[in-house]
């Protein structure tokens, strides 16, 4: 990854339209079935997956940006591509969180912010959504222990 390419990636989301780019209070972007109210992340188009619902119309909605830690783990080894690769020695293990959103009644995965290891996590912790760059400079959502 050249420095130039990385420069160009600053502020660019790793996945288009998956989250807002509001630096202070970002939100994941999902959809919601207008018939039965079920939320979808990533966004669902087409047909509602609730077997009792024939909904085919969805509205884009921001998901709750805080939730409770359901479980967590770490990536001790560098994930394979398409995860952006860095030198083996430069790889810094990171934590991963599964966070339960109360309003949406769903669990969403994501990395935990750099600097927070599994040793400082426990189920039930209040977590909030932030944005941080991956090694290619592109922004992804991450979970952070709420202040």
């Amino acid at each position, binding site marked *: 990854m050249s420095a130039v390419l990385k420069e160009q990636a600053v502020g660019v989301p*790793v*996945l*288009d339209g998956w989250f807002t780019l509001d630096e202070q209070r970002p939100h994941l972007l999902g959809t919601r*079935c207008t018939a*039965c*109210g*079920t*939320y*979808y*992340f*990533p966004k669902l188009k087409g047909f509602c*997956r*609730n*077997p*009792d*619902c024939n909904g085919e119309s969805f509205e884009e909605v921001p998901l709750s940006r805080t939730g409770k830690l*359901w*479980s*967590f*783990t*770490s*990536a*001790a*080894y560098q*994930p*394979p*591509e*398409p*995860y952006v690769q860095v030198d083996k020695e430069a790889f810094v293990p*990171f*934590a*991963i969180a*599964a966070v339960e959103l109360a*309003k*949406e*009644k*769903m*669990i*969403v*995965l*994501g*990395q935990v912010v750099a600097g927070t290891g*599994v040793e400082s996590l*426990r*189920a*039930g912790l209040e977590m909030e959504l932030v944005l941080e760059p*991956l090694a290619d400079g592109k922004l*992804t959502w991450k979970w952070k222990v709420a202040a």
Partner: protein
Amino acid sequence: MSTNKDIAILGVGMHPWGKWGRNFVEYGVKAARDALADSGVNWRDIQFVSGAATIRNGYPGQVAGATFAQALGWQGAQVNTSYAACASGSQALAAARSKILSGECEVALVIGSDTTPKGFLKPQPGDRPDDPDWVRFRIGITNPTYFALYARRRIEMYGDTLEDFAQVKIKNAQHGLSNPNARYRKAFNAADVAASPMVADPLRLMDICATSDGAAAIIVSSVDYARKVGKAKAPRIAAISTVTPTFASALVEMPDIATDSAVAVPAQSFRAALPRKAYEEAGIGPEDVSLAEVYDLSTALELDWIEDLQLCARGDAAKLLREGVTRVGGRLPVNPSGGLACFGEAVPAQALAQVCELTWQLRGQAGERQVAGAKVGITANQGLFGHGSSVIVKA
């Protein structure tokens, strides 16, 4: 009702698991010939070949049923090939059962075989933001992530420890020591496991199963046919559950990055639903089970399965383990074959290998790993995309 749905297991065969680097057809034919020999049925008499497909190996890998029918010698049998990730073998078995119970055939060969690539599985190259499997790797979520999240949840909810997880590995390694079809036949102690590198906290390398080459084959028939060929006492398949999840699915499953939302309908456990349907179909309960073969993709997952199989209350599986209940010699051995810990996963063969083990156990042919007085065995597994299975075999 349930007795009418029984079919007989006339023969089983396997090709030893390993990393042999040969063509999957070769493994499968070996397993099939062993199963045929074990059953005493002639290949020409097989009326239906039910293959479990693998997604690897390009084209030929897709066509397990027909590929083996050709390799054994085209003889005009009906054929089907099932794909259901880790549950492919059970679906192939279910397809054979339906063919038999419907009266369309009397005796069938069920077969699964795989050659796995070296190293960790990873997604196809390319830029595919619509593919959940691509997305999760893009943001750093690998296969062990999911197993580790379930494992950590046990620690947080039930107080399981890393030492408990290690004990699952130690137990299964002990079971597999004498299994000629197992890939790994080596005893381990707690220090060995603790010394293996952390992969996805709290799971170490030795908590996670490998991928292997291997093949398993089963000859099944109607109960009438079994009687006719002098095998009236052959073990019976009493249930095969291959239900899909019910929305809203409660657990985040590979390769997804979120669960279903349960705002409109309540969340449901998929894993628990699989054996529930099997018990119902067999007309028996967890109290009747003598032994279980469950999908220990991770050590901790074996504990989840024990609870999903209702062999103890939710959260009590580690207690059973600590008390020695789940080891051979205990009241309710789990993974007497050595499980995935000793085999490594050969996807389309694995669910069939579980049934092979139950067959040997119920016949009393399991040698040093024999479960005394085994009468009823149950299997459980789960794969990608809402696939899973649970099979009940009885003596």
